[in-house]
């Protein structure tokens, strides 16, 4: 069964149509990359899936593990197993990452009828996941993302993903603003989190993150539609020739 099924999805922001009929199916265990030039609708797709309210879905459907996802609040989507790693993680003064993740984790457990995790078990889990993204404890006791470097913010996103153990993770331009070392750490973290039950959608502009992640499927998004789907070699071809070759190809076939 498909974990995620997107059919003919149209979405607008402030009356301007950005997504113009997206079709996508993702199965458990798969990693899909969605590439595309600036303004093609990549981040809009991530935002619509996570439930950001600035976007209006005008047509189509999104089914997540058999449920109509568009009907769900952002928090319910998360508790059903969706995770969005933000392109620009928000700084929240006064709320520590530890406290935040603990609250989020326990809200998820509550939703699934489980008892809250006790302090010792939480600490143990945290220590284990911290290693995964090589994130320092002191960073997690500080206010969420406040004063963090670009790399620290992205590592914090992957740390949260590790803690919340989603069924479907969407990484929205997680590579942007990262130097080569930070990119490697983040990619390693993501790779360690891959398994047969979990699906990942990687949204990116560049090929370099995909070198580390080796996605199963690569899609090209252009003007709000997926215009080409292929293997990871497609990403290499894009890197070499740029997006123009796709644009030419699409305009010929259209």
């Amino acid at each position, binding site marked *: 069964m498909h974990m995620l099924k997107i059919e003919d999805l149209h979405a607008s922001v402030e009356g301007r149509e950005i997504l113009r009929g997206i079709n996508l199916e993702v199965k458990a265990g798969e990693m899909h990359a969605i590439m595309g030039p600036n303004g093609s609708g990549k981040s809009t797709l991530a935002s619509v899936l*996570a*439930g*950001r*309210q600035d976007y209006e879905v005008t047509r189509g459907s999104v089914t997540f593990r058999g449920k109509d996802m568009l009907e769900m*609040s*952002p*928090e319910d*989507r*998360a*508790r059903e197993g969706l*995770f*969005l790693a*933000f392109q620009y*993680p*928000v700084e*929240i*003064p*006064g*709320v520590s990452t530890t406290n*935040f*993740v603990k*609250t*989020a984790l326990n*809200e*998820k457990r509550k*939703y699934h009828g489980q008892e809250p995790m006790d302090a010792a078990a939480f600490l143990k889990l945290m220590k284990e996941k911290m290693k995964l993204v090589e994130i320092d404890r002191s960073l997690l006791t500080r*206010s*969420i993302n406040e004063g963090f470097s670009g790399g620290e913010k992205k590592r914090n996103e992957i740390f*949260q993903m590790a803690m*919340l153990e989603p069924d479907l993770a969407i990484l929205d331009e997680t590579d942007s603003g990262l130097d080569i070392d930070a990119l490697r750490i983040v990619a390693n973290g993501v790779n360690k989190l891959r398994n047969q039950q979990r699906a990942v959608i990687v949204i990116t502009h560049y090929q370099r993150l995909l070198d580390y992640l080796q996605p199963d499927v690569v899609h090209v998004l252009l003007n709000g539609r997926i215009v080409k789907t292929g293997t990871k070699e497609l990403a290499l071809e894009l890197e070499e020739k740029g997006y123009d070759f796709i644009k030419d190809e699409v305009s010929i076939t259209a």
Partner: protein
Amino acid sequence: MKATQTAYLQDRFHRLQSSDPAGFLEMLRDRGFSAFSRSGLPGPKNEEWKYTDVTALFDAPYRLAFEEETGALPAAWKSGRLPGARQANELVFLNGRYEPGLSVIRSPKEELEILPLETAASGAYSELVKSHLDKSSEVVKDGLQALNTSFIYGGLFIHVPERATVSHPVYIYHVADTTHHPVLAQPRSLVIVERAAFLDLVETFMTTGSHDSFTNGVLEIVANLDARVEYCRIQNDVPHASSVSTTHIRQTGKSFVNTVVVSLNGGVIRNNVNLILEAAGNEAHMYGLYLLKGQTHVDNHTMVDNRQPNCFSNEYYKGILDEKSTGVFNGKIFVRPDAQKTNAYQSNKNILLSDDASVNTKPQLEIYADDVKCSHGCTVGQLDEEALFYLRSRGIPAAHARSMLLHAFADDIVQHIRLEPLREHVQHLITDRLFIP
């Protein structure tokens, strides 16, 4: 001001003067009442009182402190005792009069002397009282302060000797017992912190009984060279309790002052915090939090008067206003010609949770020196939608996410309460208010 109000206060003033001949204090009362007669109660045409109307509060048939027998503390007062009280000097004002018999002094005399103001004014401390009591009226001309001075009676004097570190903080409870009639309480205190001495001072308010209370209090603090003063005011009273609290702190020597004013509940509340930086190199921090609902009105007026060079002041006030509550912030900074190299910062941030809540915020900088760093800023808005979405996207329900953000917003101020039991107490009050499930 209405003629009936004037006549009532005039009558009471003459009664007090004839019944309580008190030398210097009597002279001060005279001076106060002349000033009050000239200015009257501040009305809405007074720029300093534009958004806060106290004149209506004087309509009730109040009784004044000198008209009352010394009472017992109402039983309900125990519920208002602050955490850490067993380690504190607990000083009680009942209906505006300091009651030594109801107070508990835990500090030895070498650390701290606590006396009725009358005793201090006529005894060994008379020179100190003469040189400092009501000195602040030279800086701030205000009808309500003048009214307080007109009725100085049953005041409090605190002296912290040189190099003393007060191991027991001072908690001042302003208790109004309105069981039988409305109360106009006018507590008056003078606190002298000598060289290199350290004092924690806390004020709180409590009204019992169903009649209205109105507390018009004046507290003057003098901080000498190398002194440190930590001052905290907590207002969590009933909706029919109103107050105007004026705290003047004069830093006469290079010293450190930290003030935190927390307003949670009450009727009409006006807080004046005035810092007069009289020596070079003074450091002052002023924090405020108002977390309001119902029809509570809180007006925070602050003033920092920089008179000498190299002073630093930082002022940070935050408000969360719900339902029909209203807020005012007015922050005045004077930098006088001699106060070169002044660093003065001011910020006021507000979150409105309801369409019926409102806030008026106004920075007021008057700078007469040319080599200074001053900044000010104010914001009025709603919760950060981006932050809210971030929390929700991790599975935290909207209501819970909202209260987490509000709590963090408020805690930013509460962190600056130095006394731990008190800080935790305020944190609990805020948690209860903001309801984190």
